[in-house]
Structures are given as C-alpha cells and as structure tokens.
C-alpha cells in the first residue's frame, strides 16, 4: 500500500518538528559546502562555507566519512543531544543531526535508577563481606583469648602446686638439717651420733642444693638465659661415669643396670658436656626412681652426625594421655610418694631443644618406658679432656708447688672456712677479709699470689674491687668465686670465673695452674 500524500506530509511534519534536523554537506577535508535546516538548537549557527567543520563540530574529529554511520546520543560541547547520521556521497558526505534530547532524558532517568541500585548492591556486598570478616576476627580473637585464659589458669594452678610442693620438698631436708644440727650440738651426744648427724646434714644439704639447682635451671631456661658451652670432651668417659653413678643406685633397689655403647659412637665429641650430663642424670635418675623391679638400660648410638642416647626401664610405664603431661613443668610421674620438683623432664626437653635435638618417648602402662634423646653433635679429632674427679682430695694437681699466698674476700664465714680448709690442706698461706674495700688495701699491701673474690660483698663490691686492683697495677690472677650471675663485661674484670657451689677439685687445680 502506498500512503496517501497527506499522510506522508503529516508524518514528515511530525518528524521534522520532533527532531529539528540540521543537515550539512562537507567535502573530504571536512569543509562546509552547504547546509539545510535550523542549527540554533545544536549550536552550529553562524558556520560559513569552506569552514572546517571539525572546529564547531569537534565530534567529527577522527571520524571517517567514507562509510555510512549512525551515532546515538552525542552530547555536544554546547550541551545539545544529537543523533548523528553520516551519509557519504562520492567524495562528499552529508551530516544529519537530529535532536535526541527527549529520548535521551527518558533513557537517562531509567539508567540513573538502575545504576544507583547497582551501586547500592555493590556497597551492600562490601558491607556483608566486611561483616563476615569482622565476625571471623571476633571468633579468632575469642578463641585466642580462651587459649590465653586456659594457659593462665594452668600456670596459676602449676604455681600453686609448685609452692605447695616446694614447701614440702624444702621443709623435709631443712627439718633434717636443723634437727640433726641440734642433736650434734647437744651435750652428751656420742661421737658416733655426731658423725651420723654430720652425714645426714651433708646429705640433706646436697638434696636441697639439687632442688635449688633444678628450680633455677628451669627459671633460666624460661628466661632464655641458658647458653650452651660447647667444647671437646670425652663422651666415653661421660657414659662410663653415668654407668658408675647409676649402677649402685639401681643395685640398691634390686634392679639390674646395663649400658651398651655402639662402636660407631665417637670417643670425643664437641658439645656441652655439663648439659648432656644433666640430661642423662635426669633420664637415668627417673628410670631408676620409678622402676620397682626389673632393670634400667642405657644405650648410645651415632649415625649421620646425630648422637642417640636411649634410656629404657621396666617401670610402670606412662599412658598415652600422660605422655605429653610429663614434659610439662611441675608434673611428676609415678603418683604419690615420689620426691623432686617435677622439673626433670621439662628441663631435659628444653635442653635438648636448645641443642637442636628431639626427645621421643615410647611407653605403655605396665610395659616400661623408653626415652630417646637425639642430638646433632660433631665428632672431635682431639683427644678427650681429662675428667675432673668430684671429690677434692689433695693431689699433685692441687698441692701448691711452692709457698704461695691466697687472699680470700668473702662475707660468708662458712664459705671462707671451707675454702681455707682446702687451701691450707693443699699448702697455701691465706689472707682473709669480708670487705672488698679492705681486700683492695690488703692485696696492695701484701701482694698475694692470687685473689679469690666474691662479688656481692660489703665495700665497693667484688667487680669494682677487681677493676681498682688492675688500675693500681696488681697483675696477678684475680678469680671470681660467686653465686651472682655476671655479665660478660663484669667477667672481663677477672682472670677466671667460678660459680658457687664450685667443684673444689677444679678450683684448686685452676689455682695451681694460675700460680704456677
């Protein structure tokens, strides 16, 4: 059907009124040839023939005019909204601009609503994600807090248990010392009873010392203050010592004791002898203590630079649930009636870890217990270091080679008496004082061959006294003999440092070496 001319005319006039077409013809250089229609609404009025239309109509910049195109909703710099038709005609091009502002306003309003909703949705998702993160953080923080609370409760319970236990553990030997000292000082006590009293006092004092040592050791390990002192030493001799120490203890309880050292175990190793000895004493001591019948076995093997020492016993064994607990501080195996601080295995574990090793435990109730210590150690090439006997007997190593004098500065009368006893016995002449300032005066006056100096003494203190003596020109050895812990800088004031209680034999040997 062909539309009648008046309908076509009506449509044309509606279209023209709605879109206000502005048409212009440009050449291949975008220069204006001619134009048709009103340009007021689109800001292109006043354009002249031959003008480059890319100036007043910058949306033509870069646009190829050789192919037909339609671009909707172009907002011009003059803020008109146009639909642009490009209609090429040979080398020329008709550009038709139609007013699209009404349609643009309608779509913009819809688009605005949609975009705002999408933005709200994005913000909502972000808030939900943040909320989820916060809840996770909260749960994590609460769990951490619970863990810390349980840990604090455990520590508090341990502390209470420790105080109660230590009170008992300390009171028993202390009571023994006090009572036997009273007995020995009573009139009419026989010399035999006095001798027995002294032996009991000595035994109780040693027990007290060992208790103090383990508690202090645990505290030092806790504070990270323990450093390994590694050197070459005779491992075979250490293992022999252990066997010699433990076999009689086992025999006393009617237990067998066996020691087996694999032939690959090096005779001399580079490690901390004192700490390794402590580990072995702890393990073997526990094995003997908790085993009622059967025996205890010590085995040592060496493979790929790792020393493995295994202590097995035929004791009551440890249940799986108790196996972790026995390595915790103040936990004692064996139930009631056993003595000790409950720190032995804790200290053992920490020392082994300090040596970069591991402890493994294999046990079942009623089937004994096997504890293995694996530590990396280097086999040493040098010969073993001579073992130091525990008992200080006068010997070639300790007796003064010539008449020598020793100045002792210590405010603990018992300690002065003890050192005096051993030094006299080894042939040294003595000068004593309990004041460090007086020690300076006496040293400068009498020029002793060696000075033994406690640090925490009246006067200027042992460390300052040693420094003053050096400044005053005293060049002979000054040995610290103290219960105090000294820094490296403080230690440097002394020729040698001994921590109380010192091994008398070692002290005497060192005095002889220094005065030789």
């Amino acid at each position: 059907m062909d539309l009648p001319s008046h309908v076509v005319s009506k449509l044309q006039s509606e279209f023209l009124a709605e879109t206000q077409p502005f048409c212009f013809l440009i050449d291949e250089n975008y220069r204006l040839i001619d134009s048709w229609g009103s340009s007021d609404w689109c800001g292109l009025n006043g354009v002249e023939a031959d003008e480059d239309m890319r100036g007043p109509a910058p949306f033509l910049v870069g646009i190829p005019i050789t192919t037909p195109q339609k671009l909707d909703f172009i907002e011009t710099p003059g803020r008109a909204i146009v639909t642009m038709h490009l209609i090429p005609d040979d080398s020329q091009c008709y550009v038709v601009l139609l007013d699209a502002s009404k349609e643009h306003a309608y779509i913009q309003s819809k688009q605005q609503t949609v975009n705002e909703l999408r933005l709200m949705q994005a913000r909502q998702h972000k808030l939900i994600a943040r909320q989820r993160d916060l809840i996770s953080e909260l749960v994590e923080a609460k769990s951490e807090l619970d863990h810390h609370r349980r840990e604090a409760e455990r520590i508090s319970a341990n502390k209470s248990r420790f105080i109660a236990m230590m009170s008992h553990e300390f009171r028993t030997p202390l009571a023994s010392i006090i009572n036997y000292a009273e007995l020995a000082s009573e009139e009419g006590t026989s010399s035999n009873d006095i001798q027995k009293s002294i032996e009991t006092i000595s035994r109780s004092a040693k027990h007290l010392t060992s208790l103090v040592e383990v508690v202090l050791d645990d505290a030092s390990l806790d504070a990270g203050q323990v450093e390994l002192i590694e050197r070459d030493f005779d491992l075979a001799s250490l293992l022999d010592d252990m066997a010699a120490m433990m076999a009689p203890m086992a025999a006393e309880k009617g237990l067998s004791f066996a020691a087996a050292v694999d032939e690959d175990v090096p005779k001399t190793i580079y490690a901390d002898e004192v700490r390794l000895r402590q580990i072995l004493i702890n393990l073997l001591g526990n094995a003997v203590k908790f085993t009622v019948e059967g025996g205890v076995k010590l085995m040592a093997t060496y493979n790929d630079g790792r020393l493995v020492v295994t202590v097995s016993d035929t004791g009551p064994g440890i249940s799986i649930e108790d196996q972790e607990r026995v390595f915790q501080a103040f936990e004692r195996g064996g139930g009631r009636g056993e003595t000790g601080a409950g720190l032995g295995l804790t200290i053992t574990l920490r020392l082994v870890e300090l040596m970069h090793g591991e402890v493994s435990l294999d046990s079942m109730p009623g089937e004994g217990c096997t504890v293995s210590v694996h530590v990396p150690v280097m086999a040493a090439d040098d010969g073993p270091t001579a073992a130091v006997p525990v008992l200080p007997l006068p010997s070639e190593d300790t007796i003064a080679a010539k008449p020598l004098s020793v100045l002792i500065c210590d405010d603990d009368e018992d300690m002065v008496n003890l050192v005096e006893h051993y030094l006299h016995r080894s042939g040294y002449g003595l000068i004593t004082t309990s004041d460090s300032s007086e020690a300076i005066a006496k040293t400068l006056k009498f020029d002793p061959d060696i000075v033994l100096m406690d640090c925490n003494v009246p006067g200027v203190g042992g460390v300052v006294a040693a420094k003053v003596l050096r400044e005053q020109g005293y060049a002979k050895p000054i040995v610290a003999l103290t219960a105090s812990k000294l820094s490296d800088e403080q230690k440097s004031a002394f020729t040698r440092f001994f921590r109380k209680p010192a091994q008398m034999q070692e002290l005497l040997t060192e005095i002889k070496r220094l005065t030789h």
Partner: protein
Amino acid sequence: MTPVTSKVCVVGDFAVGKTSVVERFVTNQFSEKYLSTVGVKIDTKEIEFPALAVTHKLVIWDVAGSEKFGPAEMAYLRGASGYIFVADGTRPATLKAVERLQNQITEAYGLAPAVLLVNKRDLTADWDVSDERFDALTTNYGNAYRTSAKTGDDVERAIARLAELIIENDMRGK
C-alpha cells in the same frame, strides 16, 4: 606552536568517575552528585607542550560506563588516538572491567596509547587496591595513576601524559 588535534576516549565501568575526571580536567570543577552518562559526552581542552612546540587539542569522548561494550559503544571509539581507562579504587571489580574493555578495543582497533586512572583515592577508608596490585597494574598499563577527581590529585598529570604519548606515537608513525 604547531596545532595538533586528537580524539581520546574515556572508558570504564559505570560510576567509576569518568565524567568527574573529565570535568575536573576541563573545567577544574567537581560535583558530588552522581549523574549517569547515556551515550557519549564530548568536551575539548588544549594542552601546550612548549618543549615540543605543540599545542595539543584533545577532543574527549566520555563514553557511558559499561563492563562490556556493544556495537553502539564500539562505534563511538572509531578514530580514537588514545584511551583513558578509569577504574574505581574502592571497587576492585572495576579493574576487571577495564581489562575486558581494553581487550575488546585492542581486538577491534589495535593498540593505541593509553593511561589507567584508579580513581577515588580520596576515599582512603574504602580503598581496596593493594600497593602490590597497583604495581602490577603499572607494569601492565605502563602508565597507571591513583587519582581523585574530587581533589584533582594526578588527574591533569595522567591526561597530560596521554597527550604526550599520542604525540610521541604520531611522531613515530611519521
């Protein structure tokens, strides 16, 4: 001074601040009100490069935001000499949109000079693009900026850099 005129297109996801970036660059103004763009808005601004003896007139086509272009939007880009990609630093998903659009454009029209503006850096509490991510973007796009149309931070610097890249590209072409 030699006059040079180039068409550059600003593209990116919706509501990332494309129109605000152009408004800051052209009129040095900013409006808090969000008004979505339909179609394309055209503005012009001249930048002088005394060292190159060039006055560079940029005809800026601010194209309606989208995460993927259809044929109508692709038609707007025809004849562009460079692109300003804009993402929203508080909505990392808009960086993905930029990546998609860049691939579409490169596939249709080939490589062209471009800069990336990670916008809304003034919204520090909501900022969600880590330094590591931004460094990776700098490596990918060559020229990436943390911008704020609100404060004007780095907007002019970023677009001036694009104008410079277009001149360098033209010189290489000649």
